[in-house]
């Protein structure tokens, strides 16, 4: 994180340095550093209460930082009026006026923000709500309210979209559509920051990841880089279970952490070791009836980092 954020913000939509927020005894956000590249879909993940929503609220000027600095689209967060007209946001659960229709709710926001009302039909169409636009929001399902929230975020034709748990309440089809919406935004050069607890969704749609735990960013960077840093695993299943111990020793002799797991051994190693293990087992007279390589998932990485005491220190360990 650069000490001077000015240069970075020339190209980066969100830059924060030592951003903190304290609520009495609770340090909700603890010296967060962010440097988000432009035109990407960035995932923002962390356990419940980790500080995701507070960080988002800080970036949107809704809460005041206790310490630190941040710039959004090059403007300081102390002056949200300078950048929020270029930002779309869905914060926590979507809140609308239940007695007004979906379209009327969007009109309220359009008039408030002096936005272009002609965008309303387009954004409703984009999130698949055009047919229910004139129905009162109180008749909407949670998923439909979520879609309306995303539609509201798209109203200002934003350069940056911040979505807090946008797939909450959506069925699988809705989640897929939401994924397509986010990807299409990124394809148009719009930066998307999406917070979610659905790690598979984040892995599927995001290029970049910010992981927060106990108010601190414990990882920020490309998802590919994080996953590469995680060792994949190899599950080897001998034909004869009496060979499990011998097979484990072969792996350990090669310097690979291994443990017996049921009728198989689990070896923490790169994919390339699988062939070598197969050869050594054959040479030792062990016939394998199964050999499977499992790649590290974002979920593995998430738990490896957030369940460790000191964050990144255990980022490269494979969970037991």
């Amino acid at each position, binding site marked *: 994180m650069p000490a001077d954020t000015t240069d970075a913000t020339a190209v980066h939509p969100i830059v924060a340095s030592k951003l903190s927020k304290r609520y009495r005894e609770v340090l909700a956000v603890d010296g967060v550093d962010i440097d988000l590249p432009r035109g990407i879909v960035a995932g923002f993940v962390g356990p419940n209460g980790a500080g995701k929503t507070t960080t988002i*609220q800080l970036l*949107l*000027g*809704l*809460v*005041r930082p206790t310490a630190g600095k941040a710039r959004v689209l090059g403007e300081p967060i102390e002056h*949200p*009026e300078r950048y*929020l007209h270029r*930002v779309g*946001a869905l*914060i*926590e*659960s979507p*809140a*609308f*006026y*239940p*007695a*007004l229709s979906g379209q*009327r709710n969007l*009109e*309220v*926001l359009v*008039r*408030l*923000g*002096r*936005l272009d009302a002609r965008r309303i039909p387009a954004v409703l169409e984009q999130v698949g709500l055009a047919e229910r636009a004139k129905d009162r929001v109180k008749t909407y399902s949670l998923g439909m309210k979520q879609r309306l929230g995303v539609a*509201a975020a798209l109203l*200002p034709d934003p350069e940056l979209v911040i979505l807090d748990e946008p797939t909450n309440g959506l069925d699988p089809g809705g989640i897929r559509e939401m994924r397509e919406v986010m990807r299409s935004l990124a394809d148009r050069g719009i930066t998307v920051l999406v917070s979610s607890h659905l790690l598979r969704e984040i892995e599927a749609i995001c290029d970049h990841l910010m992981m927060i735990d106990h108010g601190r960013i414990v990882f920020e960077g490309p998802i590919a880089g994080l996953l590469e840093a995680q060792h994949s695993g190899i599950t080897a299943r001998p034909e004869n279970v009496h060979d499990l111990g011998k097979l484990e020793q072969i792996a350990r002799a090669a310097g690979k952490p291994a443990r017996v797991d049921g009728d198989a051994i689990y070896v923490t190693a790169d994919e390339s070791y699988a062939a070598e293990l197969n050869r050594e087992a054959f040479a030792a007279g062990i016939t394998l009836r199964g050999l499977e390589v499992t790649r590290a998932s974002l979920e593995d990485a998430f738990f490896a980092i957030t369940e460790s005491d000191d964050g990144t220190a255990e980022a490269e360990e494979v969970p037991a």
Partner: protein
Amino acid sequence: MWGSFTSELTKLARRNIILWGFGAGMFFPLLATIFTIEHAVNVPRPFVGNRGHVPFWILEQPNGLVHGVTDVSVLLGIVSLVIFATTFSLEYSQGTLRNLLVREPRRTHFLAGKFLAISAFMLAVVIVAIALSVALAFILAPGKGISTSAWTSSSGLNDLFQSVWHAYLATLFYGVFGAALGILLRSPAASIGVSLAYFIAIEAIIVGAIWSGGSNWLPDHLLNALVHGGNGDSTYYHALLMLSIYCLAIAAAIITLFRRRDA
């Protein structure tokens, strides 16, 4: 501010709000007009009748047209207080405030536009309520034998417009109290409960049992004086000045709080 104003009008322009706002706003003046005329008594001057029985000769004065309405203007103010308190606090309890502040981060503009929109709504309520009361008075009075000729004199019309103005001013002052409590307490039930308790009971207890001089300084008594164009407690201008000072101080404190408080 214009964005906040038009946005708030969009929210207010829905059937339930209009029915409730105008219904509650019209209920008390219409009831007061019917009650005043139907219970009027034909006694000669200088008799002033019993409580609740206004003599014909008073109603036949130029200001007789709005006699009943003036008496219930404070209740019109209470309706205003409830509408302001509910409208402001609901943004918190419904969770809509954050969405709104993302679209209008200039919080003072946001508050000002919202307040002006509700004030415009209340102006319509006051005008319609008093217009209907006046119409009703013209319909009922001849049947009771009350002369309405002075009501249409220039003095009568002047009294009518003054009554509308005083009633509207009262709704604005009540509105400031309601909006402030709505923002402070962030709950419709709490803000309405606290404000009604104060204006209906607490201030009366203070003046009656603790501080009799409070009738010249405390807001409910000042509002009573205002809607009557001055009364035994305060002159009209004293009431107007004190209420203006209170409301400016409250507005400054609430704007400061709203600007600094996390949404």
